């Protein structure tokens, strides 16, 4: 028997997940093929806002391979309580015709029984997937999975075709007859709030979804006393999440009992189970949700979508497994978008640059209707606008605004990148206004280092922080003084390539969430996480987690955590997840929560099982429990070094149960549900070095230095990977990506040709380092890191470009800073300078 080393946590254990992923052996939802499976495709609205005046699917039904076609009215009886529960046989007939052995021909198609849709039980009721009611009077428009009478954004589902294969379903869409009466769309979040703007939902009488406020301290006093007031307007453009695997769902009846299984590419199988059960009127115990290997989510799969529900109700209605796989065009139009804010900020400060107060006014673009967490995203951000600075007064107001655009929701960072960007841009503006360096402006407002919960201007408590250490380290790493010298040389030489040095000193809120905080914020879902552990008779270990990894590497990290507590090697630990039958309790993966909540649950459940193992070991060695020591997988008795037993022997004894302490249950199986006492707050200091071609507006990131602090690191390979990917996504927002719509509400960046996802050539080599400030909130001291890079990066990039162009009088460039925008900004600044009499300084 090999002696297990003391600790795997902190070591660069190679990811267990990777061999299957990089050799094409992953089990994506689209790989799932069930007997008799049918495929669906959606007819989607070409209009952002229109009445459907005529809709006829009958010609589509005549097309080869088509089994059924449904409008929103046809499906009206499927939703919510009282949905048709009657067991139906197959609602269509198939026969193999023409002697073609492999080709199933449909000989007869039949529109499913429509009797029950007479009584459209949901007609006058609300239908929504939204689970976050941010204010009591929040408006939550009904949005049917397939439109009924009106479409509200380009891509809204109008009809669904069911066919024997995906191609036939797609071809048949062209035979659906539909007439629209176009209505004026609201396509801009600011104009949507103006008097007389077209209404997204006329019945609501307004485009305002909610107004949410937060205030601490005396804000008027802060501005009265201010020597300096800085006012800025920033725009958070809409982003399109780009998981490599688009959405995909297979729904089927579970053989053997009357329930259903839904395989779906999701971050949240547990939440999806509850929501789908309610939406489709199926008792919760009859719905099993499986997240197979999931090819990325970035928040876009932190949702429950109409298409998932439609697969489920069609599996019920037609009695056949139903598959839907989104194509990339649909993905761009209909999977939730991220960001979408117009931010107005006012900062009051004294003459030394010390912040007195901050006022934030947001308009947050909800899109056409509310998805799972849509209204909560800017609310989550509300707590983070004060950033890493301590001051006395904070006044926040956010209005959620409906537009006739794709719904927004979580996207990597979800509310916090928006906040971190705004405050870090403001810090540069403050430095400029006061006449101090960006470094000095930050230092004057940092918290003194702390390692116990500390109050913030937003009324929450940060867990631990040492900004000074991260900033000092990143300045050293970047050789900051040399950079400033090079910058000066280029300025003096009037070099067309100017150098920019941009800062971001940031924090974020991760580790969602204490359940009582969720409840207080109106989020209809708890924030705990569950874990189970089973030490098998052989001493091998099964860990069941309620988190749902889709790239994060929980299999590896949880194995390391369990291995250290149980005294085995990580390869002896199997981590099970992603199936509500296997892992019945869970709150899933999003918001950089998994390690700080789910990983802690794993740690605690392993400790719990080892408490029992220790009792058994004491019994086996006829020693007192207090004398038992455990190290390297071996129990020994203090003072008698010869006497020992291994965890494997204890596991065998626990299972055989022939000689257990009086009254003890057999086996080594334990559960733990961990509800965190607080969030965790990772932080960091970044420097982005850009070269800006002042003749063409093209920006190249020459170097990116990032010193991050997420507390003790479980696996440095995984943490560095998260940072690389996060930084890439943050840089993408700053320099490249942005969803754009025309005046009609049509998405013009509708493919990867037009939507600028950067590739490897666009990104620099990242120079990373860490400081380690443990969180007092959990026994491992860990903080989330999944979104850190995305939250830290955009402002470092834009601050860097503005720094490069400062001598030309450029102080702001909206994201994404693509060449034409940068060039135009330079031209405008030159024009302003000319207008002032040619003085460019």
């Amino acid at each position: 028997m090999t002696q297990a080393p003391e600790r795997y946590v902190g070591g660069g254990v190679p990811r267990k997940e990777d061999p299957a992923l990089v050799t094409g052996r992953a089990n994506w939802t689209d790989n799932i093929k069930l007997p008799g499976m049918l495929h669906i495709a959606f007819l989607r609205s070409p209009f952002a806002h229109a009445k459907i005046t005529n809709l006829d699917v009958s010609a589509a039904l005549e097309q080869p391979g088509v089994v059924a076609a449904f409008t929103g009215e046809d499906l009206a009886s499927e939703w919510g309580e009282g949905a048709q529960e009657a067991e139906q046989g197959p609602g269509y007939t198939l026969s193999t015709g023409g002697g073609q052995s492999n080709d199933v021909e449909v000989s007869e198609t039949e529109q499913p029984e429509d009797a029950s849709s007479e009584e459209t039980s949901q007609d006058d009721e609300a239908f929504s997937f939204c689970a976050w009611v941010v204010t009591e009077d929040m408006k939550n428009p009904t949005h049917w999975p397939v439109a009924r009478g009106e479409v509200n954004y380009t891509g809204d589902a109008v009809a669904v075709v069911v066919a024997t294969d995906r191609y036939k379903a797609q071809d048949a869409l062209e035979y659906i007859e539909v007439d629209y009466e176009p209505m004026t769309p609201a396509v801009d979040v600011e104009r949507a709030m103006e008097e007389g703007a077209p209404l997204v939902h006329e019945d609501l009488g307004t485009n305002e979804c909610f107004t949410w406020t937060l205030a601490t301290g005396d804000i008027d006093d802060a501005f009265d006393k201010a020597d300096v007031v800085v006012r800025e307007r920033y725009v958070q453009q809409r982003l399109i999440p780009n998981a490599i695997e688009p959405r995909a769902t297979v729904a089927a009846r579970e053989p053997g009992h009357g329930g259903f299984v839904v395989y779906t590419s999701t971050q949240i199988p547990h939440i999806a189970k509850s929501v789908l059960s309610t939406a489709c009127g199926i008792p919760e115990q009859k719905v099993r949700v499986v997240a197979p290997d999931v090819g990325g989510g970035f928040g876009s799969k932190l949702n429950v979508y109409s298409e998932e529900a439609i697969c489920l109700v069609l599996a019920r209605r037609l009695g056949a497994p139903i598959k839907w796989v989104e194509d990339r065009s649909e993905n761009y139009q209909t999977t939730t978008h991220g960001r979408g804010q117009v931010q107005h900020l006012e900062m009051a400060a004294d003459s030394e640059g010390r912040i007195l107060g901050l006022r934030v006014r947001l308009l947050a673009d909800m899109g056409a209707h509310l998805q799972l967490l849509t209204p909560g995203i800017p609310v989550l951000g509300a707590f983070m606008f004060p950033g890493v600075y301590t001051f006395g007064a904070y006044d926040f107001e956010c209005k959620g605004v409906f537009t006739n655009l794709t719904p927004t929701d979580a996207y990597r960072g979800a509310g916090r990148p928006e906040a971190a960007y705004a405050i870090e841009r403001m810090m540069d503006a403050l430095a400029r206004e006061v006449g101090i360096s960006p470094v000095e402006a930050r230092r004057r407002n940092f918290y003194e280092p702390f390692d116990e919960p500390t109050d913030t201007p937003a009324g929450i408590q940060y867990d631990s922080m040492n900004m000074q250490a991260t900033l000092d380290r990143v300045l050293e790493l970047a050789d900051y003084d040399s950079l400033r010298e090079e910058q000066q040389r280029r300025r003096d030489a009037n070099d067309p390539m100017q150098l920019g040095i941009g800062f971001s000193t940031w924090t974020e809120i991760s580790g969602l969430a204490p359940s009582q905080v969720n409840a207080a914020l109106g989020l209809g879902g708890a924030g705990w996480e569950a874990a189970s552990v089973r030490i098998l008779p052989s001493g091998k270990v099964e860990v069941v987690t309620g988190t749902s990894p889709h790239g994060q590497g929980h299999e590896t990290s949880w194995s390391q955590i369990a291995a250290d507590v149980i005294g085995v090697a990580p390869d002896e630990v199997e981590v099970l997840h992603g199936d509500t039958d296997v892992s019945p309790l869970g709150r899933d993966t999003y918001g950089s929560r998994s390690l700080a909540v789910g990983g802690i649950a794993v740690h605690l459940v392993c400790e719990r099982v080892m408490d029992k193992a220790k009792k058994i070991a004491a019994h086996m060695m006829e020693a007192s429990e207090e004398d038992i020591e455990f190290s390297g997988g071996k129990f020994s008795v203090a003072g008698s070094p010869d006497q020992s037993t291994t965890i494997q022997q204890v596991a065998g004894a626990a299972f055989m149960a022939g000689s257990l302490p009086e009254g003890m249950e057999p086996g080594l199986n334990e559960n733990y549900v961990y509800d965190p006492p607080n969030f965790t707050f990772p932080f960091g200091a970044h420097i982005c070095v850009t070269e800006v071609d002042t003749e063409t507006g093209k920006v190249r990131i020459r170097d990116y230095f990032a010193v991050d602090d997420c507390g003790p690191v479980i696996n440095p390979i995984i943490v560095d990977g998260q940072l690389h990917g996060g930084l890439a996504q943050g840089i993408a927002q700053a320099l490249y990506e942005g969803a754009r719509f025309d005046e009609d509400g049509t998405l013009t960046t509708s493919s990867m040709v037009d939507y600028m996802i950067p590739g490897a050539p666009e990104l620099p080599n990242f120079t990373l380092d860490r400081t380690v400030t443990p969180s007092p909130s959990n026994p491992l001291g860990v903080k989330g890191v999944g979104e850190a890079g995305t939250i830290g990066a955009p402002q470092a990039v834009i601050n860097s470009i503005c720094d490069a162009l400062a001598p030309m009088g450029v102080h702001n460039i909206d994201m994404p800073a693509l060449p034409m925008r940068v060039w135009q900004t330079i031209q405008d600044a030159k024009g302003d300078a000319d207008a002032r009499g040619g003085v460019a300084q």
Partner: protein
Amino acid sequence: MIPVAFDYEVADSVDHAIELLGQHGEESKLIAGGHSLIPLMRLRLAAPTVLIDLDRLEDLRYVRDEGDYLSIGALTRHRDVHNNPLVQEHCGILGYTAGLLGDPSVQHRGTLGGTLAHGDPAGDMPSVMCALEGTLVAQGPDGERTIPALEFFKDYFFTDLAEQEVITEVRVPKLGSNTGWSYKKFSRRSQDWAVVGVAAVVEKDNGSISSARIGLTSMGNTPLRASAVEEALSGAGTDQVAEAANSADEGTSPGTDDAASSEFRRHLARVWTRRAVEEALGR
């Protein structure tokens, strides 16, 4: 992203391809590397009823030294053009540009003849061919003909090729030791189509410029030549490049799209022409 159904034929010779084109008519389409056509089909912007696959015509992949010029088989892949020693020695601009097209997977599949036949004014090869004053060889039912590159590109995605013609060969001049060249591509991301591209082929003569040929990418419905710049550079000193480049957008009609306004494209053409000529002079 799901194309309309189509039939598929494999050509086993150029004559067979011509015959298939005749048989299936104007709804049929030749396919070589497929990296321009297939994306259009997946977006249902193109819906040919028959694809005629040229990709197995291995004898159309070659580079030969013909004395004054190189002849390159139309199905030679970009990557093979890029890596070919003859191309590198005698026509560096062609090999260099082949290495800029799309990304590695595009370069490993796409073909020289294919990108020219596609006739995309945002393609890099058409303007390079115009600056080189190369020639295309096409075969049709009535035999073979040669077409100067300058006469080949007729309009947006529209070339001089007749319905039943197939490009079989591309000919480019061998550049002498006094010829400098540059292709400057301005794109938002490295793998994108050019927002503006400038191909410069400059004949040097004792520190001055005897002549220059400047091809422009994405400045109109076809690849263009910056003839005002060429005139100004004829017999010019190297200190006159910046001024000459200021007329790079004369006679062009660049469009406006998400990447660039017409005005920005004109500006880029001027800056990029100056930089391209300067680079050519140093090469």
